[in-house]
């Protein structure tokens, strides 16, 4: 079993590292190797899900590290492996031959490997390591086209934002050691008094950052700068999912701390609602999908906050499949038509039918339309939320309406017949074709996304819960299911009608701006954090040059200074060590040499006067 435990994460990591090390030499074989490795990883993941391997190894003193596959991990490793495989298959088709494929597939494999470690880690050290490596890989992948300064900037913002949140995990690790004398994930809820709250605070911060929940959401918008397969992977089964996973994993801690659960639930719910609105306001397909990711992850976070682990996990898996599908489809259009603007994409689905159909399935799943999976999973977690607080349920329901809205909006935009707005190649030069390998994974993902919800149906729910090791989680009532389903249906229908009539849905001005621009979160972060820090840094650097070092130089020039003080002219010019020290010591040196007149009689006089002074000193000192 140990072998499997090691092989599962090590295979993609090692293969990825190898591809990275090889540089451009392996570009030609990289795609095939990447796909093959990810296929093998799928196999390993399934095997691991069945056999549940676990490994423990020493890493730091007093904190044994380990990786293990339990129910939750089993679900996630399979999800991660499968989505990765699908995305890589697609990427093998999309990526131009001249691209640095070795780097791309290497990074993707390491990225996925890090996610695999994240979801299997049993302690904070290993978790944090994988967690941060994943962040760094996301940086490298978002900045994959590094020639473009803007994309590089996006990558930097994404990395810094997530790393800022990651500091919470460092804090949590320290507090865990202080409170529980262990870094194991399982014992965190038993930590001592102030420490447990601090651990929870740290974990929550890190998870919210990773999952792009409020107020960190803006980085996900920036993450769109990467290639479409990257978005597909990053938005579905990895990265953003890691935050949700961590909160689901640590739901007992959240429950134990009390305020943390409530906070997390509300953040999730509000994110689901507000980012849903943001998604509605987007005019760019990928930006819409990105905002919808935040919103959908919000449901999972809400689930973790209220302890709906089964519902949240189901939501995670279903969303992973649907969202990767949607991004791949958007990517396929982008590659073929050279645009991702919603208006310009009019007619795209009709032109590439298979893409269009699978996209429709994914969009409707996203919209929560019965009987597709997100409808069920959402309701199963909202059911728990309703128990916790009706307010939460209401917000969740509103967010579900938003989801239906943006699902429908995306669907309508691409399925609309081509019209005056339709354009091509506004963003990049389109290839005009969608390759076979790009199409290959779409139907499978669409199917998975559509039907995975069955696990939350009353018939299968107990087995699902057993798998995840949770008990006593109420399933959704029929009424609730009907309510949300019909609401979603209504919204979609209304949207279809509105689209048919070419009705202009006007959004109030005060809401349109913030919603289009992701609530100006990035601008706020820049103004409140980045720019002040940079200003502080500049000020400190100036301070360092002038004052701290100046103090040293001033000490060197003390001789001169005292001389000037004595003569009433006080001026402190700090211009260079040697100039200052030089002048000071030169002066002192000249002073010291002044008695050396060369005249013997002055030597006589000085010697005698000094001797007389010494006599006086000695007499006085008695």
């Amino acid at each position, binding site marked *: 079993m140990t072998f499997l435990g090691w092989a599962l994460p090590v295979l993609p990591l090692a293969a990825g590292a190898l591809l990275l090390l090889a540089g451009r030499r392996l570009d030609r074989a990289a795609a095939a190797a990447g796909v093959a490795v990810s296929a093998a990883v799928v196999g390993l993941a399934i095997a691991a899900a069945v056999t549940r391997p676990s490994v423990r190894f020493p890493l730091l003193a007093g904190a044994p590290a380990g990786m293990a596959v339990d129910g939750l991990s089993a679900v996630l490793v399979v999800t991660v492996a499968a989505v990765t495989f699908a995305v890589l298959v697609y990427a093998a088709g999309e990526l131009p031959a001249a691209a640095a494929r070795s780097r791309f597939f290497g990074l993707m494999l390491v990225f996925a490997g890090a996610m695999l470690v994240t979801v299997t880690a049993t302690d904070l050290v290993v978790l944090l390591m994988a967690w941060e490596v994943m962040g760094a890989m996301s940086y490298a992948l978002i900045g994959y086209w590094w020639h473009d300064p803007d994309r590089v900037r996006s990558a930097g913002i994404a990395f810094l934002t997530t790393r800022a949140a990651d500091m919470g995990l460092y804090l949590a690790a320290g507090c865990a050691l202080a409170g529980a004398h262990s870094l194991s994930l399982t014992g965190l809820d038993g930590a001592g008094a102030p420490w447990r709250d601090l651990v929870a605070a740290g974990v929550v911060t890190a998870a919210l950052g990773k999952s792009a929940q409020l107020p960190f959401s803006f980085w996900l918008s920036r993450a769109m700068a990467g290639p479409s397969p990257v978005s597909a992977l990053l938005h579905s089964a990895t990265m953003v999912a890691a935050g949700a996973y961590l909160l689901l994993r640590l739901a007992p801690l959240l429950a134990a701390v009390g305020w943390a659960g409530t906070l997390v639930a509300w953040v999730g719910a509000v994110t689901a609602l507000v980012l849903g609105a943001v998604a509605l306001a987007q005019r760019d397909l990928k930006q819409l999908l990105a905002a919808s990711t935040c919103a959908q992850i919000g449901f999972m976070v809400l689930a973790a906050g209220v302890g709906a682990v089964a519902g949240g996990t189901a939501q995670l898996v279903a969303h992973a499949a649907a969202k990767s599908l949607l991004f791949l489809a958007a990517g396929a259009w982008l590659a073929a038509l050279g645009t991702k603007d919603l208006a310009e994409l009019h007619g795209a689905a009709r032109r590439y039918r298979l893409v269009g159909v699978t996209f429709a399935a994914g969009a409707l799943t996203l919209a929560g339309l019965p009987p597709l999976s997100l409808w069920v999973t959402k309701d199963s977690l909202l059911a728990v939320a309703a128990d916790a607080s009706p307010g939460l349920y209401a917000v969740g329901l509103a967010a579900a309406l938003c989801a239906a809205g943006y699902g429908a909006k995306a669907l309508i935009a691409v399925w609309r017949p081509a019209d005056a707005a339709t354009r091509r190649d506004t963003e990049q030069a389109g290839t005009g074709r969608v390759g076979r390998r790009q199409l290959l994974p779409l139907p499978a993902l669409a199917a998975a996304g559509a039907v995975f919800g069955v696990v939350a149906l009353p018939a299968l729910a107990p087995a699902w819960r057993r798998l995840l090791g949770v008990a006593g989680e109420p399933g959704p009532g029929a009424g609730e299911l009907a309510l949300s389903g019909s609401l979603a249906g209504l919204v979609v229908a209304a949207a279809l009608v509105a689209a048919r009539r070419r009705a202009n849905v006007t959004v109030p001005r005060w809401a349109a701006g913030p919603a289009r621009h992701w609530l100006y979160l990035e601008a706020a972060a820049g103004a409140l954090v980045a720019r002040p820090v940079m200003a502080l840094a500049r000020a400190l650097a100036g301070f360092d040059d002038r004052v701290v070092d100046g103090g040293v130089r001033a000490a060197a020039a003390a001789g001169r200074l005292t001389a000037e003080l004595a003569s009433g002219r006080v001026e402190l010019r700090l211009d260079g060590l040697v100039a200052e020290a030089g002048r000071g010591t030169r002066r002192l040196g000249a002073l010291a*040499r002044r008695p*050396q*007149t*060369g*005249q*013997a*009689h002055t030597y006589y006089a000085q010697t*005698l006067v000094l001797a007389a002074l010494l006599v006086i000193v000695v007499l006085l000192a008695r």
Partner: protein
Amino acid sequence: MTLQAFLLLAAALFAVGLYGALSQQSIVMLMMGLELMINGILVAGAAFWYFVSPGSADGQVLVLVAITVMALEMAMGFAVVTALFRARDVDVTDEAGDLRG
């Protein structure tokens, strides 16, 4: 005739010699000043021997040493002056002031 009287004489000679040593430009005159200082010391040494500790000969030896010192220093002084005069044709200290700073 008291110790103090002798010492006063010694001090006077010493001070006069000191003045000469400090003020004379001519090296030979300067050396005279030095000799006068030793002159004072001779008086003081003799007086201390006689008035304080005549029991031991230390004072006498001191005077003897002082006389020898005087002779040797003067001999060296003349030699130095000769060498200096040969080398740069000066016999006053003021003109031997190249080395300074």
